[in-house]
């Protein structure tokens, strides 16, 4: 089982991301859960969203407290939430940032494997707005292979209708542009 936790702000679409991921995994014949950190929606407030993917029925009904992967939609959350604090040994940090791996390691002291993409730039260019949730899914898929890129297309179409094409293009662009650097021992 792979456990992924999204860190975002209310309105950035973290919940949509985990739901789309779960649907993509289910379309591949896997089992998955996608769910929000339950509660009232508050635009701009730090929020969590969770995704589990496995080859068999998932029986856990709790939050993800030791994730394999954290996806950080908004880098300003690093100082507030410290997303990788409980990341598993060998876990991956997927981060929306224009910085290089060396700069990120210097600034935050992260030791884990990094997957970095300037999702704000990609989203602005491809979508025309800095909403990075679908874009960051491209980086996540590149870093983990949790689902196939094409598996996301049907749920994207279902969710976004005519806007699905742009979102899928942003996702693919992020997939191409993501820089991965293995963990430092």
């Amino acid at each position: 089982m792979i456990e992924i936790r999204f860190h975002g702000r209310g309105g950035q679409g973290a919940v949509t991301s985990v739901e789309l991921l779960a649907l993509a995994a289910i379309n591949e014949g896997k089992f998955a859960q996608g769910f929000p950190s339950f509660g009232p929606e508050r635009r701009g407030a730090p929020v969590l969203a969770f995704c589990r993917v496995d080859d068999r029925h998932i029986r856990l009904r709790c939050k993800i407290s030791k994730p394999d992967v954290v996806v950080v939609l908004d880098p300003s959350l690093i100082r507030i939430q410290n997303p990788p604090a409980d990341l598993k040994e060998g876990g991956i940090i997927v981060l929306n940032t224009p910085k290089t791996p060396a700069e990120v390691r210097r600034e935050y002291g992260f030791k884990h494997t990094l997957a970095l993409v300037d999702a704000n730039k990609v989203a602005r260019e491809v979508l025309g707005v800095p909403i990075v949730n679908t874009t960051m899914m491209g980086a996540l898929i590149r870093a983990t292979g949790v689902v196939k890129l094409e598996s996301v297309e049907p749920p994207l179409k279902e969710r976004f209708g005519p806007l699905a094409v742009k979102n899928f293009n942003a996702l693919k662009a992020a997939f191409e542009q993501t820089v991965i650097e293995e963990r430092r021992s």
Partner: protein
Amino acid sequence: MAHRVGMEVSLAVSEAVQMARAEAIAAYPITPQTHIVEHLSSVVANGELEAEFVNVESEHSAISTCIGMSATGARTYTATSSQGLALMNEILFIASALRLPIVMTVANRALSGPLSIWNDHGDIMAARDIGWIQIFVENGQEAFDHSVMAFKIAENHEVLLPTIINLDGFILSHVVEAMEFPDQELVDKFLPPYHPRYCLDPAKPVTMGAFAMPEVYTEVKMAHQTALTNSYEHILKVWKEWGDLTGRHYQPVEKYKTEGAKTLLLTMGCLSEVAEVAVDEMREAGMDVGLLRLRMWRPFPFADLRNAVAGAKLLIVCDRALSLGGAAPPVLAEVRSALYAMRGRPQTASFVIGLGGRDVAPDAFKAIVAQAQEEAQQKPTQEYHIFGVRG
């Protein structure tokens, strides 16, 4: 052919109600149940479900409207949570006394106060004695299956009782997960149109909701009690028929790794699958621990429970609700009553867990088992523990 889908569990419940061809729905939105009736209102508005959807101004009106609609002979559905269920309270007793086969989903949520929109079983436990059939589900597939089966159970002329399907708010209702949906043909064959035994019809007038003089009130309540107790065998028949059609079988008390178990956990709802994970880990560590999952809450399956605990030394009951100032939390009270006359009954231990949305991970059950086993050797000092409580 059945097909596999990924969907939010709330929407799967709506799909089940749609496939069951509900004809009348009245509901008022309340978190975390809202997505269910929101989706139903849109499928009715889109013409995908031929039903009357009545928007009302409160849950009291929702269940009252359901009573009226069900009394005309329509297959009737509603859903609610927490304060909504509490606001329905006086009418819930009337629905069952009138023997109207309304089906209701309760997305279980804590009662105020303090105000909490999160999950526990406080809402349904406060409505324990409303005279309805009450079933608990653990995952999306079960939520779908039982939402369909509930109509067939409720509408059986030997039963004619309203039925509640309890599903945990948020931790189940708001999760996107994989499920298998049967074809419409299978559901239609399984669940033919509802033919009421009695209904409001100007051509054939009947009285419903009459008052009862002291000479008959007791007898009417006795008849209600008998109907609810006797619904047990019909529920099992419906579950078996569904199991034969779909391969998914359900029991009033379900056992998990209970062979040779000296210690048994007992859980309801979503706690059950989490507890299974803990039992797997404890079994791997060589501990003789098993799990009982209580699915049927009303009528209470006394004989099944007694059979299921035979051979165990320690039964640890996990409640997701309190009975403030009472002898025991609701499930424990029932279980202890069921076991009182049993020879060689296991010792019971009691833990209240997961109130008001408190997260419950498998480790909690391991800690509970360790504490209960240790205390079983000592003289009991308190009736029950509230697990993880501070202060």
